[in-house]
């Protein structure tokens, strides 16, 4: 067997490659389920039904889609410019902290509450990303390391606050509930909050930004060839800071929606790995803004379906993580088959 390079892949070929990759991942994960003594087909069926088979399941998948999608959009945007934002997790936490501060301590008038909360969260997320981007733009510190490290700093700050000064009256690491004016309205009978609308609108806006604006052109140019970008006179430093700030703001908003839409207070576990899973989402979506929506929905469903089979079939949580990882690896591997043709035999 050998691989022969081919021209730009057709859309059909891309879809086929990704589909085959998913089947392979599911096949491999089946072995794990079998080893656990569970019928894999039954497990997959239960997961799909749990995630998308009922209005309740679908609504919960959509709820998980919001933070995944918002973080993935930011990661994908930075990636288009050649920047690795591994820090969506920390930027999400920073957003949640800022939102909590406004809701609990600044206490603006009711009519302005949600807007100020959102603004504060976006600014905090952007600021958290800016710490890394300024180091990158002026001193050349790798943003991969700095954004990753800042995740731990953000989580430590969060834990200090909810175990310490911001701790509520009961024994648990939560703040007190926000005033009602900071609670986002929910779709009746579900936990779907306006974050879903915001996610779709932002995805379309970013898609338009990349395709039709000057900044979008510069992002694509820098991502493709930094030296050509310098040659064309693109302001590299300010663009790095700007794009990372947008990226961080999106993750900050995700944190805001988690606390004002769902929890209504700040828990110590506001970011159970959304920022990391979003990296997978962005890569599986090939850094495409609208693709992020679709993949985020699938991964939202994977979380919900995974929780479901934990309860109904008593499959451990780790097995679902393994499935996620297998999907990631095999879809990344599929990129090879998009750009190469497989030939069998000699010559």
């Amino acid at each position, binding site marked *: 067997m050998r691989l022969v390079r081919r*021209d730009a892949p057709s859309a059909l070929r891309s879809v086929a490659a990704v589909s085959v990759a998913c089947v392979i991942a599911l096949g491999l994960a089946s072995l794990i389920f079998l080893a656990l003594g569970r019928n894999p087909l039954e497990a997959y069926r239960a997961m799909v039904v749990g995630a998308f088979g009922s209005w309740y399941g679908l609504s919960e998948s959509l709820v998980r889609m919001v933070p995944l999608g918002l973080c993935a959009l930011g990661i994908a945007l930075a990636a288009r410019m050649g920047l690795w934002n591994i820090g969506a997790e920390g930027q999400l936490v920073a957003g949640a902290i800022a939102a909590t501060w406004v809701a609990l301590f600044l206490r603006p008038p009711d009519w302005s509450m949600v807007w100020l909360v959102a603004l504060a969260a976006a600014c905090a997320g952007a600021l958290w990303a800016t710490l890394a981007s300024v180091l990158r733009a002026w001193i050349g510190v790798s943003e991969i390391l700095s954004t990753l490290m800042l995740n731990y700093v953000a989580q430590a700050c969060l834990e200090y606050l909810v175990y310490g000064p911001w701790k509520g009256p009961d024994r648990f690491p939560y703040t007190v509930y926000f005033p009602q004016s900071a609670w986002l309205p929910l779709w009746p009978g579900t936990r779907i909050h306006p974050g879903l609308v915001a996610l779709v609108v932002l995805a379309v806006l970013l898609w338009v930004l990349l395709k039709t*604006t*000057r900044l979008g*052109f510069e992002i694509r*140019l820098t991502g493709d*060839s930094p030296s*050509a970008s310098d040659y064309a006179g693109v302001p590299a430093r300010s663009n790095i800071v700007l794009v990372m700030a947008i990226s961080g703001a999106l993750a900050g908003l995700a944190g805001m929606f988690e606390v004002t839409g769902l929890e209504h207070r700040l828990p110590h576990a506001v970011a159970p790995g959304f920022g990391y899973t979003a990296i997978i989402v962005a890569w599986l979506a090939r850094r495409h803004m609208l693709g992020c929506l679709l993949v985020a929905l699938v991964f939202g469903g994977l979380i919900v379906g995974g929780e479901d089979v934990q309860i109904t079939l008593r499959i451990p949580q780790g097995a679902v993580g393994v499935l996620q990882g297998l999907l990631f690896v095999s879809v990344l591997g599929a990129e090879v088959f998009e750009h190469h043709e497989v030939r069998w035999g*000699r010559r």
Partner: protein
Amino acid sequence: MDRGRRAPDAPPPPECALELRGIQKRFGQFRALAAASLSLWKGEIHAVVGENGAGKSTLMNVATGIYQPDGGEVLVNGIPVRLSSPRRARELGIGMVHPHFLLARRHTVLDNVLLGLPGVPVLPDRKALGERIRGLAGRYGLPVDPDAFVWQLSVGEQQRVEIVKTLIHDARILILDEPTAVLTPSEAGELFGVLRRLKADGTSIVFISHKLEELLEISDRISIMRCGETVGTVTTRSTTTGELARLMVGRDVVLDQTPGAPAARGTARPLLTVSGLSAINDRGVPALKDVSFDLWPGEIVAIAGISGNGQTELTEILYGSRAPVSGSFRLGCDAAPVTMSPRRAIGSGISFIPADRRRTGTAPGLSITDNLLLKSYREPPYCRAGFLDRRAMHDHAAELVDTYEIRCACLDQPAGTLSGGNLQKVIIARELARSPSILIAVCPCRGLDVGSIETVRRILLAARDRGTGVILVSEDLDEVFCLGDRIAVLCGGALVGPFPAGEVDRVSVGLMMAGARCGKEGTDASRPA
């Protein structure tokens, strides 16, 4: 024994070291090779010529196992073989020097040589290898520092590393794809010495080049390719440049374009006045020493020199992508020296054709349209209030593709898929479309076929006649003397000249390029018109 200079047409037919028969290769819809063949005799230097896109490089990639042919046969020493990989080709003694370098930029020369060696132990003997490199380098006159990082080297120096990499494998069949494109005439002469020595040792050499005089000098036989086919093989002794050019292009070609007299200066003022410019290179070593000259409207100042003598630094400073250590330059009537940046250069009407086409001059993954608008995208009518006007961009690109005869399937095609000549046309089209007052062109014809060189030279002369001041940095003496109104030489970071073209000859310029001080020290800032 006649030291390797075997009469190539003497009967009986000599043994073939490498034979390619009826090779076919398609890329999608594009037929790169139709019926290409080549028979390389043992111990000969066999040149391959053809226009850009004729299939020379593709054929050589088949011969080195990089591409698998769709049809045809490959024979090494008369035995049919399947070159399943570059490694297999290397095992069979086939080595290749590529036109664009396959070097890991962040590693040292030694690391790069090490990468290509088979059976390297976990802890290689770096010292011994360094000695071997120095030995080879000394023996063949290819000075390279094994401990230098590749990114610090000029294009010419990187080429030397590529050649050393092949020599270290003791290849019996050596394929050189445009090896002299980046070398000066004297360096090329040294390379020819290396090749003749290798030939005398019995090595068979395939030599691809666009420079016909060079082929006539070095080769024993010449194969001509056109549109993916081998149209003929001739014995070098019985052919001429004119015949070769005609075979390649299918028509007569005029390369020696006699430029008209440059525009009279009259009351005009210089476009650019450079005074006392000094700079250091990426390694922190002084690269420019007190360079001064001026540039007037409607003239071409040709700066000759071997690459790595400060050309990169000088052009980058003028374009604003590098800061000088001391010295300054002024634009037009401005009294104050400018602090330049690429953005300001673009705004002040300075166009720049950089040496590195594939990464700096173009963004390979972006479309041809985007690349043609790499500098104009932020200005109206292409951009209004931060939004791009895709329609205006497309129309402008279509017009340029038409005017400059850029051969492409469609405007949305990634620029990286274009051949070298077409890519250069994209850059030239973009830079000249902005009607620059100053054009800095670094080796604009490097690696182009005779047809394209003719076009590029005509374009540069036309720009000059419209009043553009052109700074032409070149390693090619033919080009320097064909186009330059004034000629300067950059050697070791110091600029000699510029002199009016009539006052210097090729020998003295060649000597100055090689480092000899010029006898006539009268640097003339004010040339008699």
